């Protein structure tokens, strides 16, 4: 298996700067929590299903050097991070982007970074990119950017790509959104992916493990109910908003279908992490979202057991 898992249990969720740096208030009375209190209830290591390497072309982002990103993630208790590449979003030479991604994941983090290469099914010979991701780089999954690559989800090329990925046992991460359309570069406005065609596309692919990234902004998204009927569709938490948004989402989506994804470094890691505390989520549901679901998915994708 490509990924070497490591334990960084000492960097648990609530000992991290995110929450430990703040205060914890009991209901009705604001009281500062000591850092020791904050450390006492950490739910354990985190598998972050949504990070990116390389550069966002419209700004430098603090943490966009791979060593910086690794340090940032480790400090928060992340033991494994599924990494795509901003280059894969924008570059036509997807093969080059994937080769660099694989190299950087080998070079930095000592197994913490798990590469998810990009496949653009509108590029000539994209099948070779998929093959390389699987066979040459041993990537457990791929990442898709339909809105940046210029296709809709009812495009036959996507259906074929999903089928081939499923046959290879690869996880597919489909990114629905990257940036608020209200302040994109005026020369390059990119709308959000319309997920409406997706349930039909998945109709005869029950074995496909699909993770929808940045697809859930509010818990009542109309796309959720039909997608939840599919057995192996998952969602990350990075873009979720609303007061107690995670608690509200859990009333509609079981914890088994949610993965911790921070969208680092584009988003502040702490913004996703604190959603668990705001919604008072802990125990089994927290552990599922923070690590267990992702580990199970990864293990199942290759038909191998995850290491404990």
């Amino acid at each position, binding site marked *: 298996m490509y990924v070497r898992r490591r334990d960084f249990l000492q960097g648990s969720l609530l000992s991290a*700067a*995110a*929450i430990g*740096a*703040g*205060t*914890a*208030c*009991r*209901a*009705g*009375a*604001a009281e*500062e*929590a000591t850092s020791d209190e904050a450390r006492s209830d950490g739910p354990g290591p985190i598998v972050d299903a949504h990070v990116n390497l390389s550069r966002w072309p419209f*700004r*430098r*982002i*603090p*943490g966009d050097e791979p060593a910086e990103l690794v340090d940032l993630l480790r400090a928060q208790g992340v033991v494994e991070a599924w990494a795509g590449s901003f280059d894969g979003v924008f570059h036509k030479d997807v093969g080059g982007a994937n080769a660099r991604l694989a190299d950087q994941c080998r070079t930095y983090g000592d197994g913490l970074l798990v590469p998810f290469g990009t496949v653009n099914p509108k590029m000539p010979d994209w099948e070779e990119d998929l093959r390389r991701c699987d066979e040459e780089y041993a990537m457990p999954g791929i990442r898709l950017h339909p809105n940046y690559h210029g296709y809709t989800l009812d495009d036959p090329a996507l259906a074929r790509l999903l089928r081939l990925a499923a046959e290879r046992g690869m996880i597919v991460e489909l990114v629905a959104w990257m*940036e*608020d*359309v*209200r*302040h*994109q570069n*005026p020369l390059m*406005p990119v709308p959000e992916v319309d997920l409406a065609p997706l349930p039909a596309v998945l109709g005869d692919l029950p074995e496909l493990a699909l993770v929808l990234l940045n697809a859930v902004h509010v818990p009542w998204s109309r796309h959720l109910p039909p997608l939840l009927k599919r057995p192996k569709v998952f969602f990350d938490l990075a*873009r*979720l*908003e*609303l*007061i*107690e*948004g995670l608690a*509200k989402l859990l009333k509609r989506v079981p914890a088994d279908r949610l993965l911790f994804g921070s969208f*680092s*470094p*584009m*988003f*502040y*890691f*702490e*913004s*996703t*992490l*604190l*959603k668990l*505390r*705001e919604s*008072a989520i802990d125990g089994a549901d927290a552990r599922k979202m923070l690590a267990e679901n992702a580990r199970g998915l990864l293990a199942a994708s290759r038909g191998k057991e995850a290491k404990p």
Partner: protein
Amino acid sequence: MRIWDLHCHLPSKHMPDGTLTEQMGLMLEIAGRVGIERIGVFLRTGRTEGPNDDVEILRALTRYRGRVFGFVWCDLDEVRQSIDKLQRWVGDGPMVGLKLGGYSGICSKPEYDPVFEKAVDLKAIVFQHTWIKLGGDPPYPGGGNLPKESTPQDLVEVAARYPDYPMICGHTGGNWERGIRAVRASKNISVGVAGGYPTRGMVEMAVRELGADRVIYGSDVTGRSFASQLGKVHGAAISEDEKARIFYDNLNRMMGPILRAKGMDAG
């Protein structure tokens, strides 16, 4: 680290049904989980009946006096009414600030000056929603703004008329890389970081260009989460001292005059 949240909305359909007082209590409880002590709440007044009428607003603010800062929501097109609301709720009542939203009028229009003059006279905190939304054909920044939605540049014009009075540029202009630049030279404008996605680099740029003393934390709940917005500051590559100023010191300093004038705990 102490945290005051400048920017919350109530009543809300995103919270369990209940009176304003009940929702306010629950919001404080949720805020407490993530370390927030006090919250600024933007409130629409003027209802004479229903679960959120003026009597209920008064009841809620009395119940949570000292932990909730009320901002009275005004419409600049209704100058006389806005002045009266400021007098009733800030001058004579429990509120501390003026809230101007995305539908409240383009604040730079000179005919709205009496509203700002009244707010200054009462030492009210002045909060102006601002955005620079991409829109139009071809798209351009600001082309997607609502007809009565102010930009940071509009607030710069207002702030120039009251150069010694602090004002808050809500949402940092939304399009924050433009908004920060727009207000940079206006030393009496601070930016509120509430609302918008927690894009890494936003707070760092604001601190670099404006100084940490001109950056104020807020969340924009209930449409946003406390978590996503707190993360902007907790996760920023700035010093702990700068975070403390953004989370608490700056708003506390700005509110000092009116809290003391009202005999309220200034924290």
